[in-house]
């Protein structure tokens, strides 16, 4: 596949170096150098070839018969008791321990005769692409990380198991309660995709509760007597105070995390104009990015970037900027609530991460100041063409049980989409504050999906946002170029479209 052409430029094709074009009077030493270089090229070559060797394979109709067992009260999904189950976990921010120590043990307790094959990886697509091509996909996949498999492509190829049966199955803890009633609203909807024939089915389980906002140090604010702003005037006034103290008021990492910033701009826009402005963006509607609310928000935040930002942050990675906040050199930093866990090692004692929702921009904002973006994070799916998809769904059912969610929360310190799992658990200050904010927001919680659905639009939004925030583009130009890309994606028949 495409890895091959990547490497063509790495080496010198020996044939071009030894033809009649090559002068006769080659000095010995140069010939040696040439020969060595050619040899090195040949050494690189097979490696490049191996990468390419995994390409498309044949049609994957050759699917073996799938395992089923008798349904019962303890086995509502009809799993064959001794069917093997393969579990692939993305070894990222949450590690793999929650799977090996909690979920796999639960499954093993329910089905002692089943053999579980566990594999953790940091590059999901690299490991799994050949497996899907060969028609031998693993049952259960944590499709996450930088190299996750394109959900659209998976849906289009009918690779994903319809999870309707799982959501309608009785939950592990209460047989009278369906699994769908144990999770927070919107999560099932979030994992729904439109299939080629026009149906809409739940294919993906988003498991981790993720709350987005702006983070600050509770200690820094307490020491300086600063109060958390809820209006724009309060926010800019506080930024002035912070700046006067020699601390950078607001910043994000331009080098690799510009999406933290478009997230702030769009969250702000949803507050100004209501969550429907995000819906039209997700649905690729014409001029969705040029909506008034979005332009207003982009303009306001561009000003923050120009006035209270630090130009050098454009060249820094998210870890660098997060470290600066830990060193009390930066006051406000936008992120999701994985931040506290991610920074565990670098956070000084007493730092106390706290989340604040983006402040209200105008008095006429459609949503109150407490409204936030929250969603399920970490996508999991079951392969429809695997040998034991019912086992995969049962694994999910166990994951969503009280024991499964509680175990996850205790292992990684993050809340899941099952509220019962974290009841009474004392979170570290950051997650506690984001959970409190989530509760306070009540029904004013919204989400957006376009970056998951259309990676190209995400990339364009990131680039444009850097241009906007570091003063090389106006809000109008920012909206214009992203809209242009959205229109191009809409017109592109090779991209699977989704809507909500």
């Amino acid at each position, binding site marked *: 596949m495409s890895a091959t052409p990547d490497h063509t430029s790495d080496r010198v094709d020996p044939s071009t170096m030894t033809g009649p074009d090559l002068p*006769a*009077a080659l000095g010995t030493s140069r010939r040696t150098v040439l020969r060595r270089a050619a040899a090195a090229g040949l050494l690189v070559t097979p490696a490049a070839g191996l990468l*390419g*060797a995994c390409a498309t394979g044949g049609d994957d109709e050759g699917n073996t018969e799938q395992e089923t067992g008798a349904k019962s009260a303890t086995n509502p999904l009809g799993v064959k008791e001794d069917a093997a189950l393969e579990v692939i976990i993305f070894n990222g921010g949450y590690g793999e321990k929650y799977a090996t120590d909690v979920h796999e043990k639960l499954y093993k307790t329910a089905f002692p005769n089943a053999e579980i094959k566990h594999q953790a990886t940091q590059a999901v697509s690299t490991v799994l692409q050949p497996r899907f091509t060969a028609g031998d996909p693993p049952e259960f996949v944590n499709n996450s990380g930088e190299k996750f498999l394109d959900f659209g492509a*998976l849906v289009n190829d009918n690779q994903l198991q319809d999870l309707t049966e799982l959501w309608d199955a009785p939950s592990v803890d209460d047989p009278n309660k369906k699994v769908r009633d144990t999770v927070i609203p919107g999560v099932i909807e979030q994992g729904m995709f439109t299939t080629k024939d026009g149906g809409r089915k739940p294919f993906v389980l988003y498991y981790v509760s993720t709350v987005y906002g702006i983070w600050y140090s509770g200690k820094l604010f307490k020491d300086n007597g600063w109060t958390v702003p809820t209006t724009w005037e309060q926010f800019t006034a506080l930024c002035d105070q912070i700046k006067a103290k020699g601390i950078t008021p607001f910043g994000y990492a331009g080098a690799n995390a510009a999406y933290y910033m478009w997230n702030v701009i769009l969250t702000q826009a949803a507050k100004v104009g209501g969550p429907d402005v995000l819906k039209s963006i997700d649905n690729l509607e014409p001029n969705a990015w040029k909506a008034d609310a979005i332009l207003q928000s982009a303009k306001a935040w561009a000003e923050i970037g120009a006035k209270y930002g630090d*130009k*050098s942050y454009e060249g820094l990675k998210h870890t660098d900027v997060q470290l600066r906040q830990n060193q009390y050199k930066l006051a406000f930093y936008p992120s999701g609530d994985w931040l506290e866990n991610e920074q565990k090692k670098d956070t000084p004692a007493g730092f106390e991460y706290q989340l604040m929702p983006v402040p209200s921009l105008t008095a006429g904002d459609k949503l109150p100041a407490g409204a936030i973006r929250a969603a399920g994070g970490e996508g999991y799916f079951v392969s429809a063409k695997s040998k034991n998809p019912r086992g995969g769904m049962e694994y999910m059912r166990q994951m969503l049980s009280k024991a499964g969610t509680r175990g996850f929360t205790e292992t990684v310190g993050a809340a899941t989409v099952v509220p019962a799992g974290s009841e009474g658990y004392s979170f570290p200050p950051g997650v506690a504050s984001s959970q409190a904010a989530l509760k306070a927001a009540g029904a004013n919680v919204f989400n957006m999906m376009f970056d998951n659905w259309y990676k190209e639009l995400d990339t364009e939004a990131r680039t444009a946002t850097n241009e906007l925030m570091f003063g090389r583009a106006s809000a109008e130009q920012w909206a214009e170029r992203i809209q242009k890309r959205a229109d191009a994606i809409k017109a592109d028949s090779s991209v699977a479209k989704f809507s909500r």
Partner: protein
Amino acid sequence: MRQGKYPFVIGFLILPVTLYSVFVIAPYAQAFQLAMTNWRGIGTPEWIGFENFQRLFNDTAFWKAVQHHGIILLALPLITIAIALFFAFLLNVGGGSKGGKRVGVRGSAFYRVVFFFPQVLAVAVIAVLFQMIYRPDESGLINGVLTKLGLEPIFFMINPNLALWSIIAVLVWQSVGFYVVLFSAGMASIPTEIYEAAEIDGATRVTLFFRVTLPLLWDTLQVAWVYLGIAAFDCFAIVAVLSIDSGGPDGATTVLAMEIYRNAFTYGRAGYASAMGVALFFLTITFAALMLRVSKRESIEY
């Protein structure tokens, strides 16, 4: 021995040729095939003819990358060869004549080793190293000094007008050492008598360089030019690690391999990425053929 020649040759060739066909030629052929499909990495590829190439034609990112290759293609060989020639001359000939032998400037043995250092480092290591050197804040090597002196920091990778040149500087720094050694080897094979004759006729070092060294080194220069030209079509690792926002700001440093990577692994457009790969393949081949034609010149026998 005569009658056993073919089995002997075939016996030697069969393994490498098989490996080469299976792992190199076949994937190449497949890339050409995939370039005609809309394959997204999963499922069966669907044949779409030349649609990918039409799309390529209107893709601004692609043309930006091609344009950058053009700049690197001019700058990288020119600067690298100039610097490498200068150093090689100083190291081998620049010190004058000693006991009938041309020698380099004092300490040339030491410099030779130092110049070669970057060649020993993996490209990724070099990129990470320059991340530290170019860092925009006070913990960067250069900007740390500048801020200490009270000067404005230089935004090497952030300033769109500077970013590509900062990348080229790294590429030059990395390649110079190898070409110093290559040219040194070339210079070592130039007979001392020619230098002596020229010196007796009153040639200065500058004349020596332009009238003796350069013409007699022509073949080596040609090889260097082709090598560096082909290297200019790559640059992936340095750009991927060093540039901000993967080829940014706003595509100011992007190269074809970066776009191929982005399309294949971020957008999941394996078919389109293959089409880019095919384009890159022809660009590289054309360049190599062109260079060998253009730089063909009577070589001087001695």
